[in-house]
């Protein structure tokens, strides 16, 4: 259930619904509970209006967590234990700073028991308050911004797709929100690998959906029994359900739909000899353009290709376009005349998982590599002096 939406107007130094002994307003010298949200740093709860002697004693007190919580408890509801956090005396007040930030929109119940103060004499009624921070806008606004591969036609042995979002998404895997529909609108069952691992990028804006390789790979039982989810010559519609939640628990703004035309399976290994490398001229910062005969995996293209010279990496920026079949590298510094190398890590794959010199369909025996590094392939190219014809 979504947290109830609180519309608490005051964010900074808010005193919220404190009540003690039936009084709705505390006199200035009485203890009062406030929630403070500083410009930077974590919001905290304070009890102000305490005698300085009591604060002095608290500042040096060695209390257990239970004793602190009996004195001042901040909790998600009246019956819950106090949430984790640190107690301190600061700015003339008793302060509770939670170990984790307060959730926007969630009400927190605060209970201060003056009878637990050092030196307290006689009974005193606890002071309670409900504090909270304003809820976030719950209106769905997050959308799917892009799907890789971007080509209109994908091979029927497509191995994975990257789904990019306009805002960070929640932690759970999103496989359950993906559907593949055939041309009649019927769902193709079991298309995606049913792994509920969180295949997110660190910023939670990109999710990787793997097709079930048991169905993708030719000649194996799931493939023979169910066939590939994608069939050459047909079209499918990828539907991403709006129920998928973003990091604030909001559904997507809308369903996302994209039609994919399916082409023949791609079973050939990558062959760097088929790549077209167009070197720039020296003295400028024109892009080095590398064109591939078929689309490659977008994520791997971003990091498995680079430029080197004299055993050092060349700094620059990469642009990938033409449906992931063109890679353009613009150096930070102008090109110098001489020999550079295009470097390709052997982890580079096309959209069907075929690697350089190794097709996805080929079984092979890997070995334990002594080096943590993948192998690389170096492709030399010459940058001619400016003005050379």
């Amino acid at each position, binding site marked *: 259930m979504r947290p109830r939406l609180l519309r608490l107007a005051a964010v900074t130094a808010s005193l919220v619904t404190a009540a003690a002994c039936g009084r709705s307003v505390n006199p200035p010298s009485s203890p009062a509970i406030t929630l403070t949200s500083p410009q930077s740093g974590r919001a905290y709860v304070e009890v102000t209006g305490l005698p300085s002697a009591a604060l002095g004693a608290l500042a040096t007190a060695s209390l257990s967590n239970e004793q602190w919580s009996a004195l001042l408890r901040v909790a998600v509801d009246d019956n819950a234990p106090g949430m984790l956090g640190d107690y301190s005396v600061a700015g003339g007040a008793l302060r509770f700073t939670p170990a*984790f930030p307060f959730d926007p929109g969630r009400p927190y119940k605060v209970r201060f028991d003056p009878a637990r103060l050092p030196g307290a004499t006689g009974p005193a009624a606890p002071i309670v308050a409900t504090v909270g921070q304003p809820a976030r806008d719950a209106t769905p606004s997050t959308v799917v911004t892009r799907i890789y591969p971007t080509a209109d036609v994908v091979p029927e042995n497509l191995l994975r797709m990257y789904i990019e979002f306009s805002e960070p998404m929640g932690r759970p895997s999103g496989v359950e929100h993906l559907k593949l529909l055939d041309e009649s609108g019927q769902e193709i069952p079991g298309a995606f690998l049913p792994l509920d691992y969180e295949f997110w990028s660190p910023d939670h804006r990109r999710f990787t959906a793997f097709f079930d390789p048991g169905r993708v790979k030719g000649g194996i039982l799931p493939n023979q029994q169910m066939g590939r989810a994608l069939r050459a010559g047909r079209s499918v519609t990828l539907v991403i359900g709006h129920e998928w939640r973003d990091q604030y628990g909001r559904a997507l703004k809308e369903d996302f739909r994209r039609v994919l035309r399916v082409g023949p399976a791609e079973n050939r290994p990558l062959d760097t000899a088929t790549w077209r490398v167009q070197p720039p001229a020296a003295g400028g910062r024109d892009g080095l353009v590398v064109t591939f005969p078929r689309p490659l995996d977008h994520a791997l293209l*971003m990091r498995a290709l680079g430029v080197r010279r004299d055993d050092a990496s060349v700094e620059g920026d990469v642009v990938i376009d033409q449906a992931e079949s063109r890679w353009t590298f613009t150096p930070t510094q102008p090109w110098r005349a001489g020999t550079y190398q295009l470097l390709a890590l052997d982890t580079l794959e096309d959209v069907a998982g075929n690697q350089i010199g190794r097709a996805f369909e080929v079984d092979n025996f890997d070995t334990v590599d002594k080096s943590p590094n993948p192998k690389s392939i170096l492709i030399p190219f010459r940058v001619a002096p400016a003005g050379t*014809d």
Partner: protein
Amino acid sequence: MRDLRAKLGLLVAFVILASLSPSSALPVVDTGQGPALASIGPLAFGPDGTLFAADNQGAAIFALDLGAQVNGGAPGAKALDALDEKLAALLGTGAREVSVTDLAVHPRTRNAYVSVMRGQGAGAAPALFRIDGAGQIANISLQTVKFQKVELPNAPVANTSARQNPRTQVVTDMAFADGRLWVAGLSNEEFASKLRAIPYPFATVDRGVSVEIYHGNHKAVETRSPVNAFVPYTLNNQQHLIAGYTCTPLVKFPITDLKAGEKVRGTTIAEFGAGNRVLDMIVYKKGGQEFLLTANNSRGVMKIPTAPFASAKPITTPVESETAGVPFEKVTSMMGVEQLDKLDDTTAIVISRSASGGINLQTVPLP
């Protein structure tokens, strides 16, 4: 100018295989106090009480010396209903915002440790809790914990301008055996399951090996099928790993074979059915026999006698039936089990999900 570029483009046919040393390749080992975990996932205890914690977001493994924080609790671990709600209360949030990512039992105190992620998205934060025999939940403060950290070899970036590498690693399971921490993991980019051995104390990490198995249901030698869960186990006086793969071969391989530069092939000894993955597994002894207990995402809990493992006929030909290999029985009394560990010689402790979606910590007699 364009003509010139086209001519120079003809130079490219020369390809060199080389050993690469581009940026950020070697794993970094770090030590100190107060580890900064970006996330917390699978847990595993070493025999001396060192707690290994995987940080998927940070692509690292931490070895945590919990110090005095392991003491003071009642021995054992008590079952707790609505564990997610109880943890959420301590974390100051709602149960929906809490993900229990693993469960491990301390080898001496038998207290249960649960790793938790609080919140969603990139802002989610890790937390670690201890649950003792009286049902008390204690937060483990990481500020005072001494640690060693090793970074998993993230595929290096050939292009140094790729400032934010969106690749992450998903550690699926860890176990300590033979002086090494064994780590199985997947990536969110290249589709390849890797098993790595990390000597402890941490020093180096190998690149990992794709342990070759014959997948009877898939009628093929698989190199890329993900290892979901595994346990160390001794067969014929030789240390092995017993591993559960997706869709669901059970595989044994001697870990003495897993040496740099050698070819490795696991032996498939069972097929437990397609459309399934192993969530967790433990080994226990009952009535003089040893058993493997596996929790599965779509096929419930399975109890598998280990006696046939050593001499089990390897599955090397296509399996046309749904299951094959060493016998097993389904444990229908255990429902919704997501995490599993052995609490003591007669009891399992499990994280289970109720029909309503809530998470319970349960203690269950070993079947």
